[in-house]
């Protein structure tokens, strides 16, 4: 007996797929509405931009200038370092331990090439600010339109 191909399932799958996409979008939007992305790694960074440069800030309390290593290559910025543990005198006991210590390493990719020779970084009151100017050859160039 020749069986009729059962086409009834296909529209069902399409509907389920559409529902799945809608749910994903709903959850993604619910978290995005807070306006903040959770940091994927330590430290949390804020990135400020203008046409010619980017400013990356990070909070690194307890680090010293020697503990932080900043490397710049092409369009990436690498922040590496360590937060040293407090040296406790003999026989001290902790009542409460909320601060963490350890090493960190974070790579950020910027939307333009960085001019490595003009990068400035400053560390004040535990806040690191890195200014990354855009490389000259990467800046948009104005094209003149020739009249006919």
């Amino acid at each position: 007996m020749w069986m009729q191909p059962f086409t009834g399932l296909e529209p069902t799958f399409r509907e389920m797929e559409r529902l799945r996409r809608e749910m994903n979008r709903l959850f993604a939007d619910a978290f995005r509405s807070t306006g903040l992305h959770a940091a994927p790694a330590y430290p949390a960074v804020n990135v400020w931009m203008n046409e010619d440069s980017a400013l990356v800030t990070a909070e690194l309390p307890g680090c010293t200038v020697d503990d932080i290593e900043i490397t710049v290559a092409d369009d990436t910025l690498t922040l590496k370092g360590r937060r040293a543990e407090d040296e406790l005198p003999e026989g001290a006991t902790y009542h409460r331990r909320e601060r963490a210590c350890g090493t960190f390493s974070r790579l950020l990719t910027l939307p333009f090439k960085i001019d490595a020779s003009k990068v400035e970084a400053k560390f004040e009151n535990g806040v690191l600010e890195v200014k990354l100017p855009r490389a000259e050859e990467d800046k948009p160039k104005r094209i003149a339109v020739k009249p006919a």
Partner: protein
Amino acid sequence: MAEETTTLQAQEAQKQEVQQSDAERTRAGLVFVPRTDVYETDDAIHVVCDVPGVAEDSIDITLENNVLTINGYVKAQRPDGYQLSYAEYRVGDYQRRFTLSDEIDKDGIEASLKDGVLRLRLPKAKPASRKIKVTAS
């Protein structure tokens, strides 16, 4: 000697906001609870707070009725000519309160602030002992 250091996790970077009822301020702005370590030695209790962005002149430490209040004020981040394009943390003031016991010598509290870390040293009071004179009756 091999040194074992852990890698800092992303949740260490998250800041916790103070409950609104405690720190209602007249100015609108965020107030965070600074991460604090408290450890005790033989002669003192040490309190170490992470307050990045607070300068020496904008920290306020008060002791009233055995309650130690730490208030750190941070200038809002607003670099000229830049637009915020990606934020993972917010900037705000810090506040935390601790209730001290009578064991603390309140006049000997020392505080220092460096690189965004506030260190308080609360010396323990020497136990009061009085010698009682015996008079011949």
